[in-house]
């Protein structure tokens, strides 16, 4: 697939300047596959790595395809929760995070100022019998939107050896207290 993309763009590996990946939040293993693959490519080609929020990529993709200036990304996080971020277009055309990305219970999801919503959490809301805001439940973050954001960031000098993953959900294990005889 990587070869096919380069071929279509008539580029060689050596002409790549940056490698970008969606650094979460989202399905843990999926995010790590992207991260580790990108790390391998960055190391091999000796180029910087750029991590971009999955929520930002989704917002960019939906805003660009629908000609919108604001999108609230909301991705189903299972366990009746969602990863949420509100994004607005800046002068350069890049969707910028407003406030923070958060992990919220489904019933705490709000749509500020009836902004357009996008992402799998819309379906989770419906399944939970909660009010569903206007939006696109089928929208998925795509690599083209990721590359648009990363290209812009790279032009501003972004990129480095490391790009940490943003899991947002960090309660993933419970401490056990063993019985002592």
């Amino acid at each position, binding site marked *: 697939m990587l070869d096919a993309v380069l071929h279509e763009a008539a580029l060689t590996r050596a002409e790549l300047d940056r490698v970008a990946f969606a650094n979460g939040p989202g399905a843990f*293993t999926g995010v790590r596959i992207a991260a580790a693959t990108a790390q391998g490519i*960055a190391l091999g080609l000796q180029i910087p790595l750029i991590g971009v929020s999955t929520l930002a990529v989704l917002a960019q993709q939906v805003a660009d395809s629908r000609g919108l200036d604001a999108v609230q990304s909301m991705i189903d996080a299972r366990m009746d929760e969602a990863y949420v971020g509100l994004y607005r277009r800046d002068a350069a055309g890049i969707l910028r995070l407003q406030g923070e990305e958060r992990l919220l219970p489904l019933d705490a999801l709000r749509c500020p100022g009836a902004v357009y919503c996008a992402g799998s959490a819309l379906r989770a809301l419906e399944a939970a019998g909660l009010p569903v805001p206007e939006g696109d439940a089928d929208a998925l973050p795509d690599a083209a939107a990721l590359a648009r954001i990363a290209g812009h960031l790279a032009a501003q000098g972004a990129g480095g050896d490391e790009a940490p993953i943003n899991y947002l959900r960090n309660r993933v294990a419970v401490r*056990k207290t063993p019985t002592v005889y």
Partner: protein
Amino acid sequence: MNVLGIETSCDETGLALYDLDSGGLRQRLYSQIERHREYGGVVPELASRDHVAKAAPMLRELLDEAGGVAAIDGIVYTRGPGLMGALMVGASLARGLAWALQRPLLGVHHMEGHLLAPMLSERPPEFPFVALLVSGGHTMLVDVAAIGRYRLLGESLDDAVGEAFDKTAKLLGLPYPGGPELAALAATVDHSPLTFPRPMVDRPGLDFSFSGLKTFALNTMQQLSPLDDRSRAEIAHAFETAVVETLGIKCRRALRQAGRGRLVVAGGVGANRRLREALGEMADAEGAELFFPEPEYCTDNGAMIAYAGARRLAAGQRDEGVFDVRPRWSLEELTPLK
């Protein structure tokens, strides 16, 4: 040929550059034990998080020391068995790197790595040999005729030996991983009035079962509760005696059954002093040679993966198109070298 090996199947991030021609080896190892201790065992999600955070920076360091990425002629990684999410990290890193460098790529069997790790030691055994693999995740006896020619003689039907040590240690209130702690506690007494069963020794096969020992320990503790220091140590001692004797009996049987004169012991439990002594006596009595590779090659590491993979890459093997990891994967599915 310089081969990069990447191991991320469980809770150790291991990287190594092995030169098949000179035998030269550089490696990096990061153990996550401290992170998992408070949970009393390996938490798969935390293991994966650590691998993805540590592997790339460690690799950069290793490559800087080795003179850069140009030093890599081939890339191999642990395809399985192991934790799915953890395996994915090493496999993805390897694949990204192989694509960028246009170098051959191959997924390696973790247990083959263990079986061949003794080849990296100061005093490597010759083929054929019988290998006893005793770690936190595995207990097996394997007849190793040559690279890729493995016959599973026996394995644990339930808990691995290290796991039995760790679980029993936990019952005794010792911190994870409790194997060494239990052994130290057992060493505070020189005998125990208690007798634990020797599981499955009176049956003909070479399989093991250790979960009963843990249950026996639990019952004993409940009977003797509240425990004082001495009875704790006696329980540890009796448990260890039962494990050591069981392993000794099965190893002798395996050597005889396979008709081999060499026994190689690998895996973390191989560090156990009483096991070493007992196997030493058994091997002497059988006229067999006994090999204990250096501890650094006994536990999970990148060097063993680099070595096993280098031998296979040199024989022309490569990953074919599809990308997969194999959380469950039998050793006997492997093919001999051409």
